[in-house]
């Protein structure tokens, strides 16, 4: 099938593994930024194929995982209100807040609905003028244009019963925070292909230059990931630190200008808490003042809800690459996908859930080919 089968081709994959093994003269540490890439790596066992050459640290690019606990609690508070239809992407439903999750809120009578597009939430608001429709606007630059479009559409329609609970984050400030951290081990990055489809890679050029790290814009299929790894390893071996584009079928240097224009029309940079990591300056997107009427936090008085992370969860260390998921003391014991203590165990893109679901640390050690 076009655009899928060829990027899962076993012969191409084996060729890239051989190339990485032939190129690497030493052991390198790379980080894949995006949770979708983590999912592919663990699902296909890619990191085990080149374990002697490359260590993959799983980055903070899972929107479910980095949405702060108090933002989840705010979502739960507003979703429990009788007049509200709370809408969300599917994988936010099981994320535990301090006391419950959206699935339980729904079971107890809350009107919680999964939507595949934020525009579906706007349509719900149009069809139900007597109800308040709230959309949980989470994600990186990938989901920001569609979420911005939802606000813009609601604005155009003059809807007063639609609002968004915004928890948007952006990638470049997170990369900066990682490379500036004193115990950083990451020597090169696989940047998230879908984020760059929207934003292009100009923002990454000063990062690669200033911190002398290769950044390879990479796709999400096994062959994409292996090719991105091979390109990063080549740069490291040759002493280069450039931004390169592996995901050429989707990404241009300037990205999607229309989508960027829409984001800046609706959102502006704000300081944002990252779950497990903490405050990163100017790392989030918030509504511009002229769209404040669509801000669910203000509309429903949610800003005073505060929360404390469970002490046993080491998600912060996992998200910063200091700890492999299965090295966490509660991994697979107190913390499982059925009873997650932290967000990386919830979403299938979360590093902990990916390790758990794919059975890392449960299979006998791999027999290296």
């Amino acid at each position, binding site marked *: *099938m076009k655009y899928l089968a060829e990027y899962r081709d076993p012969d191409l994959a084996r060729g890239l593994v051989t190339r990485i093994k032939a190129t690497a003269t030493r052991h390198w540490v790379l980080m894949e930024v995006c949770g979708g890439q983590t999912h592919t790596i663990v699902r296909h*066992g890619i990191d085990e194929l080149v374990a002697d050459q490359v260590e993959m640290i799983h980055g903070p690019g899972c929107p479910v995982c980095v949405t702060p606990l108090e933002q989840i609690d705010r979502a739960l508070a507003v979703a429990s209100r009788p007049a509200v239809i709370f809408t969300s992407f*599917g*994988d936010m439903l099981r994320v535990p807040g301090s006391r419950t999750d959206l699935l339980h809120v729904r079971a107890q009578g809350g009107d919680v609905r999964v939507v*595949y597009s934020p525009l579906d939430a706007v349509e719900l608001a149009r069809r139900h003028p007597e109800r308040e429709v709230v959309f949980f606007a989470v994600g990186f630059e990938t989901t920001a244009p569609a979420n911005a479009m939802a606000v813009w559409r609601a604005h155009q329609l003059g809807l007063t019963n639609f609002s968004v609970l915004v928890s948007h984050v952006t990638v470049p400030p997170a990369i900066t925070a990682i490379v500036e951290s004193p115990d950083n081990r990451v020597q090169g990055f696989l940047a998230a292909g879908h984020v760059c489809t929207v934003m292009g890679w100009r923002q990454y050029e000063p990062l690669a230059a200033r911190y002398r790290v290769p950044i390879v814009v990479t796709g999400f299929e*096994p062959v994409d990931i292996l090719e991105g790894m091979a390109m990063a390893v080549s740069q490291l071996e040759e002493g280069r630190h450039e931004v390169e584009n592996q995901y050429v079928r989707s990404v241009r240097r300037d990205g999607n200008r229309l989508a960027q224009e829409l984001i800046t029309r609706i959102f502006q940079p704000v300081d944002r808490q990252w779950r497990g990591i903490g405050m990163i300056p100017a790392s989030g997107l918030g509504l511009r003042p002229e769209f404040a009427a669509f801000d669910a936090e203000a509309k429903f008085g949610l800003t005073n809800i505060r929360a404390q992370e469970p002490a046993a969860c080491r998600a912060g260390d996992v998200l910063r690459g200091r700890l492999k998921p299965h090295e966490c003391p509660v991994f697979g014991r107190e913390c499982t996908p*059925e009873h997650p203590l932290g967000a990386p165990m919830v*979403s299938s893109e979360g590093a902990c859930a990916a390790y758990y679901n794919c059975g890392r640390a*449960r299979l006998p050690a791999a027999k290296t080919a």
Partner: protein
Amino acid sequence: MTNDPSLAAGPVCPVPLGSATHVLLGHGSGGKLSAELLRERFLRRFGNPALAALGDAAVLDNPGGRLVVSTDTFVVTPLEFPGGDIGTLAVNGTLNDLAMMGAEPCWLTAGFVLEEGLSFTVLDRVLDSMARAAAAAGVPIVTGDTKVVERGKADGLYVNTTGIGTQTEEFSPGPAGAAPGDAILVSGAIGRHGMAVMAAREDLGFATTITSDTACLVPLVQRLRASAGGAVHALRDPTRGGVASALNELARAADVGMVLEERALPIPGPVAAACAVLGLDPLYVANEGMLVAVVAEERAEAALAALRDHPLGREAVRIGTVTSEHRRLVELRTAVGGRRIVDMLPGDQLPRIC
């Protein structure tokens, strides 16, 4: 509108008998409307001597041997989807559960919960489907029940079916039968039913050509029996939870490990594409017309050939092997040469954000 059948039959009733286009509460009253519903819609389609006797229970001749009984309740939105409807599911699903125990099905029962307001056009189509599926399998529906609940108290129509069959000792595959060295076969493509139903839900926003695979698996099991007999160690129809959950259940029941080859998995292109868009794994998507068979290695080729000899089994293929290593775990060798565990899911699969 009235709920009283005696009034409904009278000259002043605004809803004269026989003219209703939708299910009314009165159809569940036990009165004339109920009798009419039974006669005009159910008996007309499901007619057979045991049912036609209209006793409080069906009276059946003892077929001898071991009886196998299975019951299942069917709840699906939408009621009709590409490739089938709740009626075909209700008949085939229960027949398949019997077939997975190696049983020859003899009788079915059917219970219906109808929601007030359900269109008779839809109900008639569903009942036609049930009648067709039961007739094709040669299994009569010998007793049944209908209840009507108020609008809003049910999702259109729920169906429960119970199947009764007979089993012989020589051919009684059970969940615990898998043994190290056995071949793991599937009779057809993976993931069609679940994705067809998901695509038919109007809020998905993209069109696909995927149709449900709903089918009666009895003929396939008969072929397996003829070709491999007692070498068929375990059978499963991987409905809810998909192939992954079915294999995990078999591995746990038999205390064995399993190794699957990703490259061998028969996942149709449209199913793979729809799953990729939604962030779902086809191995966990429901099937309603294919089976997983665990067969002793020496009879595996014969069993495969027998499956492929039937239209339902044309795409039958071996997907893996039972092992004594990593007991109770199902390992997948990925197409690119890696490996992972295919585990049970904690709940439903949830579509990913991006």
